[in-house]
């Protein structure tokens, strides 16, 4: 019997209404672990390479991993995955809260949706009872409104994941909302869900997950709780969450300002963690099984607006919907946060898209007439609210922004592509890479496009030198294996990064949950590398090659110097980016064209993938021997 898992999977064809339940294959579970691992493998195996991300052949994969719902050091996460309408490659995004654990309690480790429903539906799961139900009454409602309505109609003990109007209208950066303000935000997974006319998933589970050694697991977890309660990061973390890092990011010249035109926002003091705690915070909020409760639940009161409640703002929203859009008051940022959450768009790519449009307006590339008589000025809430509604409702020029950067830039013309701060269609996270070259490399090479959660290097960039290009790629590769691993096991990365729950403690917990006594950190890291290579191959098979041509940001990041602030003058060239890419591909054992080599793929047990790439003419050629250990652990004192 498979321990640590719910043990079942659901296959749902939304076109026909067919629902199939089957056992989870233990070999598959061990090889791919869950979460992002299941997503990568299923999308690679099942989605035809020419399938439209919004077509019936795309899959929406919903999967908690092994930690989810179990009594380990955090187990709140659930992954949502699909071929992304942003990148046209594998996309996955995780959400905390309580949804993943509830799925496990109902006995499910995996739901795979295919097809498109002829009418709006939601998936109802009450342990063994699984039904597609009419969602017409909820269609058009916001994410939080839908969650409240479903809880009212079904019961408070159901956990809900829902999409809003943006997803219904296939806005490519639409997200999936849960727990009144948490999101699987990135990669447009919500857009795929809405495109399938799947409004929500409601789940209630009452089962226990079978565990290999619960007493020892309890002992381990209680020991970790006791130890970390005294951790010096705990109290400030609980009080401020991530929002406090606006000031820090600004001080170190990496804070995106006015669509990444510069990296210092002189009016940041009104949107830092201090104002959040002092002016709008109602209470802290925690995910399932978490004793850090870093979530911030806030009340926003702005004259002329309804009073609204929002979870956040987190740092990423505080940067990309903050200084990047010119907002200097926490209430404004929180209101934009609420608006994005309600209509169901990712505040990160959403914040980027708004700022992109603002810069186009500033430069005269978008006219007032195209904005239905409105303006789009930095820091103007009315302008932003109107623009968001144009995009979500796909009105006028909003139609092109709803399709993503490429469509918008092509429509606007005038060199607007320079102002699209993205890689592979995914808006950049809230750190500017011109004063942090490894961070830019991490964005350039991330499998899902520019996302900080794959690798974050700002302090390493400072340690090694903000203008140093060489010698950082191996660290980026290592981080790209360890950080996404937490999305595979469905554990919150912050326990590892913030309060020193060790990687080995996570492995020990997996062994106690599953009984896989021979499971090691090395196996987990190899799995992470296998997933990375599989996603790269998938991306190439869908988009063609060479892979290298997709690994560049917009020209701002290699042609413009930072004009102000602590990083003033920081500038990278295209040659710098090429040096970093050469080192990166070498560290991965890929060809210099950015395509994975047969040697690496076979070493990772992906022989079939190597054959597929070879047939498509996309196999990388090694110009040097395969590195014996790919990537290198980040040991800051060693530099």
């Amino acid at each position, binding site marked *: 019997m498979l321990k640590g898992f719910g043990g079942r999977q659901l296959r749902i064809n939304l076109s026909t209404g067919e629902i199939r339940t089957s056992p989870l294959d233990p070999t598959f579970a061990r090889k791919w672990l869950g979460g992002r691992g299941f997503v990568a493998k299923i999308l690679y195996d099942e989605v035809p390479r020419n399938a439209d991300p919004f077509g019936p052949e795309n899959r929406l994969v919903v999967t908690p991993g092994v930690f989810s719902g179990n009594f380990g050091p955090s187990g709140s996460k659930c992954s949502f995955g699909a071929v992304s309408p942003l990148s046209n490659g594998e996309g996955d995004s995780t959400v905390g809260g309580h949804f993943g654990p509830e799925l496990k309690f109902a006995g499910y480790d995996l739901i795979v949706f295919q097809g498109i429903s002829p009418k709006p539906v939601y998936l109802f799961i009450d342990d063994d009872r699984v039904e597609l139900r009419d969602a017409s009454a909820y269609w058009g409602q916001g994410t939080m409104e839908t969650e409240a309505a479903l809880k009212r109609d079904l019961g408070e003990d159901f956990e809900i994941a829902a999409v809003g109007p943006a997803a219904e209208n296939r806005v490519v950066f639409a997200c999936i909302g849960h727990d009144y303000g948490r999101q699987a935000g990135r990669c447009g997974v919500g857009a795929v869900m809405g495109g399938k006319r799947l409004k929500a998933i409601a789940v209630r589970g009452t089962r226990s997950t079978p565990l290999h050694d619960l007493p020892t697991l309890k002992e381990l977890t209680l020991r970790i709780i006791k130890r970390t309660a005294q951790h010096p*990061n705990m109290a400030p973390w609980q009080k401020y969450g991530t929002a406090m890092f606006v000031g820090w990011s600004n001080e170190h010249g990496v804070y995106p300002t006015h669509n990444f035109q510069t990296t210092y926002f002189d009016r940041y003091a009104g949107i830092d963690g201090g104002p959040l705690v002092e002016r709008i915070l109602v209470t802290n909020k925690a995910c399932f099984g978490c004793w850090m409760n870093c979530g911030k639940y806030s009340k926003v009161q702005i004259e002329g607006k309804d009073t609204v409640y929002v979870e956040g703002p987190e740092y990423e929203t505080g940067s990309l919907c903050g200084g990047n859009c010119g907002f200097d008051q926490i209430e404004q940022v929180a209101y934009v946060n609420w608006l994005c959450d309600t209509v169901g768009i990712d505040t990160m790519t959403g914040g980027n898209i708004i700022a992109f449009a603002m810069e186009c307006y500033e430069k005269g590339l978008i006219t007032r007439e195209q904005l239905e008589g409105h303006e789009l000025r930095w820091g103007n809430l009315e302008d932003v609210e109107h623009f968001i509604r144009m995009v979500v409702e796909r009105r006028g020029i909003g139609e092109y922004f709803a399709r993503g950067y490429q469509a918008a830039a092509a429509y606007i013309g005038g060199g607007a592509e320079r102002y699209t701060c993205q890689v592979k269609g995914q808006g950049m996270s809230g750190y500017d890479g011109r004063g942090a070259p490894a961070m830019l490399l991490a964005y350039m090479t991330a499998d899902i496009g520019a996302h900080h959660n794959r690798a974050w290097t700002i302090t390493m960039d400072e340690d090694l030198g903000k203008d140093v290009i060489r010698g950082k790629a191996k660290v980026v590769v290592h981080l790209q294996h360890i950080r996404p691993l937490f999305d595979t096991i469905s554990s919150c990365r912050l326990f590892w*990064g913030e309060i020193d729950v060790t990687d080995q403690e996570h492995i020990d917990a997996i062994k106690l949950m599953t009984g896989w006594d021979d499971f090691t950190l090395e196996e987990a890291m190899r799995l992470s590398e296998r997933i990375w290579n599989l996603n790269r191959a998938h991306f190439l098979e869908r988009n063609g090659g060479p892979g290298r041509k997709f690994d560049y940001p917009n020209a701002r990041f290699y042609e413009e110097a930072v004009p102000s602030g602590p990083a003033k003058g920081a500038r990278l060239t295209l040659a710098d980016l090429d040096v970093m890419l050469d080192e990166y591909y070498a560290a991965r054992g890929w060809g210099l064209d950015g395509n994975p080599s047969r040697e690496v793929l076979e070493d990772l047990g992906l022989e079939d993938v190597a054959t597929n790439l070879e047939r498509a003419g996309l196999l990388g050629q090694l110009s040097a021997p395969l590195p014996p250990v790919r990537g290198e652990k980040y040991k800051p004192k060693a530099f």
Partner: protein
Amino acid sequence: MMTVYLKGGGLLREYLQPDVDEYTRRVEVAEGRTLRQILEAIGIRPVHVAMAFVGNRLVNLAYVPSDGETITLRPPVQGG
């Protein structure tokens, strides 16, 4: 001279090299030194400190500690 105790976890711990307990380092400094000067004197770059607290009170790197005071240092979030 006076004694200041610096406390930190996460990545910061590797730079701090605690010697009192798992997280705390004892530092002997001249009176009147700012927190920034103290950190630089023991080889910690300011980028590794996002927040500093005296008890529950938030202070910045210009803060001048008193003799015997404990300063809790919070590293950046490593990607918020």
